[in-house]
């Protein structure tokens, strides 16, 4: 009787072990790469910090304590992460349709301007109408900007990479013209302030925590966008068509999908999502539009999407990580030259990208060795 019991326990342990091992290998393939590369980047970055005459451990501990050690730091990190979630999501969504959206920067710029414009034009509307209107204006402007590249691709086959880059320049030039010539508030470099009814509340005024940080409710909108995109991609017919075209344009054509519609709508939605990224700054922070607000979030979003492998939820985590890097750099501004922090950020990204590829290769190789050939 006891023997039987022992046997059962043995089998159970074996099963659990197998399950855990399987999960670990899955886990390592997704997590180990990034973790190892962060450690490697921190070590090389530490050497560089040491070369500038500072104690790397001290610098790192200040960075850590000031970003994640108190609620103000966390608020700053999440504030920095918010636009990256939008732009990363925009790029990831376009990528599911096989499109490289390099234009998130421009889409974000026109979106931010449109959101501000709605906010300072319809000043008498109540917040329950004005905030959605401002968001809709941002989405629509970004969608228009993305849609132009989408239509050019669908109708004439011209490459979206070139078109979105060019549209970035145009977006910058147009908003620059509008700010400097049409809507300039004298003695400043920005537009009029938006109506208080268009302002997105800060979390510190709502809850009392994150005190002093501009971390605001556009973060909630960003999370909602991630959930919506996840559902759209994985649960809907439209998402299925987008994915099919992204994997194999030939298969989509064979299945008689409407390819022009797929291309255009993918870029419209991607542009719209990027168009919302500016609300963090406009509606949530400064309450006006000014040039240079973006801090390159449209381009950093490419790295975010790449590292997150286009997964909407991973994009949230990766954006927060980039927020830590970004704000962490500011906290040690007085000790370490800004360039060193920028180098550190760049290296972490390079390490993550290359090491993830290496570990993928390693795992694939093991799969090949294990699997029977035909």
């Amino acid at each position, binding site marked *: 009787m006891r023997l039987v019991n022992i046997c059962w326990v043995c089998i159970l342990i074996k099963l659990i072990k197998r399950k855990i091992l399987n999960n670990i290998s899955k886990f390592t393939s997704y997590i180990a790469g990034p973790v190892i590369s962060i450690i490697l980047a921190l070590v090389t970055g530490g050497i560089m910090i040491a070369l500038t005459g500072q104690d790397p451990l001290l610098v790192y501990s200040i960075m850590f304590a000031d970003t994640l050690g108190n609620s103000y730091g966390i608020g700053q990190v999440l504030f920095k992460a918010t636009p990256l979630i939008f732009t990363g999501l925009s790029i990831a969504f376009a990528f599911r349709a096989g499109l490289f959206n390099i234009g998130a920067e421009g889409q974000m710029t026109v979106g931010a301007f449109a959101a501000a414009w709605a906010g300072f034009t319809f000043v008498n509307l109540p917040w329950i109408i004005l905030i959605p209107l401002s968001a809709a204006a941002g989405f629509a402007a970004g969608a228009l900007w993305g849609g132009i590249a989408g239509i050019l691709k669908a109708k004439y086959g011209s490459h979206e990479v070139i078109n979105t880059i060019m549209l970035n320049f145009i977006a910058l030039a147009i908003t620059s013209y509008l700010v400097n010539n049409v809507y300039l508030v004298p003695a400043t470099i920005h537009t009029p302030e938006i109506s208080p009814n268009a302002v997105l509340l800060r979390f510190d005024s709502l809850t009392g925590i994150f005190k002093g940080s501009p971390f605001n409710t556009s973060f909630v909108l960003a999370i909602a966008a991630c959930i919506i995109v996840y559902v759209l991609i994985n*649960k809907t017919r439209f998402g299925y068509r987008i994915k099919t075209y992204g994997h194999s344009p030939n298969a989509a054509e064979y299945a008689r999908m409407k390819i022009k519609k797929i291309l255009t709508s993918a870029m419209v939605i991607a542009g719209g999502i990027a168009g919302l990224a500016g609300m963090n700054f406009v509606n949530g922070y400064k309450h006006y539009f000014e040039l240079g607000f973006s801090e390159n979030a449209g381009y950093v979003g490419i790295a975010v999407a790449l590292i997150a492998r286009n997964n909407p939820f991973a994009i949230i985590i990766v954006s927060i990580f980039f927020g830590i890097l970004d704000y962490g750099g500011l906290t040690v501004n007085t000790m370490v030259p800004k360039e060193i922090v920028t180098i550190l950020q760049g290296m972490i990204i390079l390490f993550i990208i290359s090491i993830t590829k290496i570990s993928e290769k390693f795992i694939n190789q093991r799969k090949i060795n294990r699997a*029977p050939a035909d």
Partner: protein
Amino acid sequence: MTEEFAVEMKNITKTFGDIKANDLVNLTVKKGEIHAIVGENGAGKSTLMNILYGMYHPDNGKILINGKEAAINSPADAIKLGIGMVHQHFMLVSTLSVLENIILGDETVKNGMLNLNVSREKIKSILNSFNISIDLNASAGELSVGTQQKIEILKLLYRNAQILILDEPTAVLTPRETAELFKTMTELKNSGRTIILITHKLNEVLSVSDSVTVLRKGKVTGNLKTSETDIKVIARLIVGGELQEESQNNITPGNDTVLEINDLHVKNSRGNETVKGISLNISRGEILGIAGVEGNGQTELVEAVCGMLKPESGEIKINGKLPSHTVTAHIPANRHLHGMVKEYTLSENVLLGRESEEKFSGKFFLNYNSLKDFTNELIAEYDIRPGDSSAVIGGLSGGNQQKLVAAREITKDSPLLIVSHPTRGLDIRAAEFVHNALLNECKNGRAVFLVSSDINELLKLSTRIAVMFNGRLNAVLNSNETSENEIGEYMLGLHINKIDKA
């Protein structure tokens, strides 16, 4: 005494996880012979050849080359021993010239500069000695599949390979190119080289090989002299039993026309008119076969009937409606390119082209439960393995992938079934399965439009065979009144226009 054997593989065993891909396999190949290796997909042929070529390391067993024991740890070792392999999928750089492709990786260099003339002379002498003609300056990507294959063989000869492994070399060739390949193979054999041929086509085995080794589930089930055997014996050894064959003879077509094509003209994507006035019709319960050398307009004809290409003029009616207004069921010629998405699961592939059906999707959201149930029904009915609706299709064997594509298309609600090269690259059991499924549909009153480059397949399945040549129908023949030879002659355009009634 073992000097007469080019290759001896003794007691080779290779396991992947729980699967024994090769189980104590013995293979002996005489010098200067063509040795065929046959077996179903997954029988262990490719594994065995990959071991010989140094891609895999066997768990057990030894290999002798020309009587001497050899350790082959990489393809580089294999090439040193004079072993070369032509893979099913060619490895050519399409923008480089034929000459550059041949010497790639083994270039003659003088003072750091390529010395193409030395290489050119060497290749020319190879071309002469084997009666091969090829333009060395052409870009590899512009040449036909048959010529590309010649480049692959030349690559091996350039490296002095004495033992050539050809992995399903005829799967992508037209009958004429196949005949040419066999001629080259015989020349190679006469020059003392040894050829190992992996194939699914048993008539090829009989016509070209000297001996055959049959594998089944990783074990050798037969080792025969070709001259002393026949197709039935080999087929039995391959599947371990008799095949159930049906043929079209006991089917009588109905009278109602399903597909009607009138004076159809179609241009391809480059703007050339490739279908130049075709009229034909297919009735309920009839299989109409389209024969022809590839590139005579069949692809465009099929795409027009499917509604993928718009005709220039003429009309296509399926039960009186335009193709773009009907559901079309189409088993495509190239399942990898068109028929499936290899990253998708079986379920997601079942959805391909059917995502508008109410059963699988509302206006917005997909109905995954009903999709999964339906996929499981198809898996059971068509014996698709592994039978897991959430498995990724890229991991399945070619036969099982094709079964899924066929199952998806056959179960569509459409009076016409359009089928291109349905058994290309399939082993005989899977091919048999697909054939029987098509005949069954035909019995149930469906019209089937079948395009194939395999004349035997056409003769076996179709009621009538239309031969395409240069964009036109060159003949429409009753399949029980014609022969392989006659069809072959029409395919090459030797007779013009014998059309009584299309």
